[in-house]
């Protein structure tokens, strides 16, 4: 199949931040079997990330406040991309910035890399003070960022949207107008968990991003709305633990999905999702057109 100009063996990708840069999972699964690998967000400069604790478990979900810890684009190109390039699975690089220029600069640097098959623009991270979600919450800024990335590269662009908005169709349309080839949603939902003994947050930062099965109904609804607002393909993300969860997103209008938190629960989660989708398609040959 092909999605937004990216050739994939199947419609199942692994979601940014839940799969590192592939290496950590290569011990457990065959990376060649995945539809695509989306990297952890890469920034221009290295980022330390937020103070611990960064993880809190919540009912059927988890909050994280990692804060985009990564070693920066230079390190990524030298140390992490060569490993991913060895596999017959497209690498999609997720980028995050503090300004429109940051995003454009990252896209410019990556545009030289033939082993990069697409760029996912993270305008939806809830765990950073500057940039991140603030771009994705404002349709005007969304369009600006995507347009700047569009100018900097000919590679396929996926705009990753935040669910923390009143009307998802606004940033969805803005990203499409800015020149995105596809949308991916949802990133995590801002949440909070309080330790009742101390009265303080259970995370080192006050708030975190909620992910996992708990968010799936919200994600399905937002994908449904976004898919009807734009002509470009939509990639569904949010609490996908099994093939049937993924199929729910296809029915909502998604052309592909990303598996995130499930990778932490079961290292073969994405592989199982692929198998279960195949079984579903076998039972319902006319349900979807993956092309």
């Amino acid at each position, binding site marked *: 199949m092909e999605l937004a100009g990216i050739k994939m063996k199947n419609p199942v990708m692994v979601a940014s*931040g*839940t*799969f*590192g840069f592939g290496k*950590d*999972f290569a*011990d*457990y699964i065959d990376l060649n079997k995945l539809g695509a690998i989306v990297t*952890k967000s890469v920034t221009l400069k290295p980022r*330390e*990330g937020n*103070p*611990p*604790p*960064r*993880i*809190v*478990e919540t*009912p*059927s*979900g*988890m909050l*994280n406040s*990692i804060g985009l*810890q990564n070693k920066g684009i230079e390190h990524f190109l030298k140390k992490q991309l060569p490993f991913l390039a060895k596999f017959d699975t497209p690498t999609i690089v997720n980028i995050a910035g503090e300004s429109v220029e940051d995003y454009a600069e990252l896209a410019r640097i990556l545009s030289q890399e033939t082993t990069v098959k697409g760029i996912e623009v993270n305008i939806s991270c809830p765990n950073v003070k500057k940039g991140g979600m603030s771009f994705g919450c404002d349709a005007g800024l969304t369009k600006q960022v995507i347009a700047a990335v569009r100018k900097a590269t000919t590679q396929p662009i996926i705009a990753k949207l935040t669910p923390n908005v009143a009307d998802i169709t606004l940033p969805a349309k803005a990203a499409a107008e800015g020149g995105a080839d596809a949308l991916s949603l949802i990133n995590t939902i801002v949440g909070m968990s309080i330790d009742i003994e101390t009265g303080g947050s259970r995370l080192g930062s006050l708030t975190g991003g909620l992910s*996992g*099965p708990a968010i799936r109904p919200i994600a399905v609804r937002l994908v449904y709305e976004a898919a009807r607002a734009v002509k470009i393909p939509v990639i569904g993300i949010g609490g996908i*633990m099994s093939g049937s969860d993924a199929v729910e997103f296809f029915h909502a209008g998604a052309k592909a999905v990303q598996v995130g*938190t499930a*990778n*932490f*629960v*079961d*290292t*073969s989660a994405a592989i199982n999702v692929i198998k279960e989708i195949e079984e579903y398609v076998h039972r319902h040959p006319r349900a979807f057109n993956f092309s």
Partner: protein
Amino acid sequence: MPIQEKCRILEHQKVGPHHYKLTLVSQYISSHAQPGQFVNVKCSESFDPLLRRPISFHRINTQHRTFELLYEVVGRGSELLTKYFVGEELDILGPLGTGFNIDPEKRIHILVGGGMGIAPLLALGEQIQNSKVKSQNALYVLIGANNKEHIFGEEEFRKVTDQVQVATDDGSYGKKGFVSDLLLNFIETELRTHNSELATIYACGPRPMLKAVAEIAQQKKIDCQISMEERMACGIGACKGCATKTAGGYRTVCKHGPVLDAKEIIWN
């Protein structure tokens, strides 16, 4: 290299008020595990609780292809774990992380455990005693807990060394006080006649205890390895959720650790 595997439960015993010992069968994991490493255990078939729970190797028995976990019930995950019966299988990820490093130059091994912190130290003590140079090694074990009911492993430790000291916060057993007090006293008395450069402290337990031990080790210039804890999601280095502050920046407890050089750790 770690694997994800369904491991059969060979034994599952209640060993304390809220404490259980679990023996699992795995040829691969038991033959690759190192003391200080851990497994990430799926405690339920459902997605609530969602994440795996990290538990250290308490004992590694390569010959019998088994490993033991000693765990305390502190919340839902560990509570659900108690419901598993002998003969059932648990979904295990491991062996994970970086364990203790037994430096062949060292001759004096001081194991310091607080509460459930003794869990990984038994595997370590047994490995030190099984090593070829065992006759040249001196092994000391210092255990501490709130009270008598929470002292675990004393009997097993006594099988690997006769140098075992116990302290309880309330004085209900052994010396009254903290295990860090035992350590300081030990260094200032018995260790005085020895070359402290040949000694290593290995510690695991609650954070305040570990901090106290690290300070003593630094003050007395003794090498010290500490097994840290942090909230985890993936357990395999992918999510950066288990970061702890070190002199070299944030490091993952699940991969770079859980055992870290005490000098590296930034406590506040």
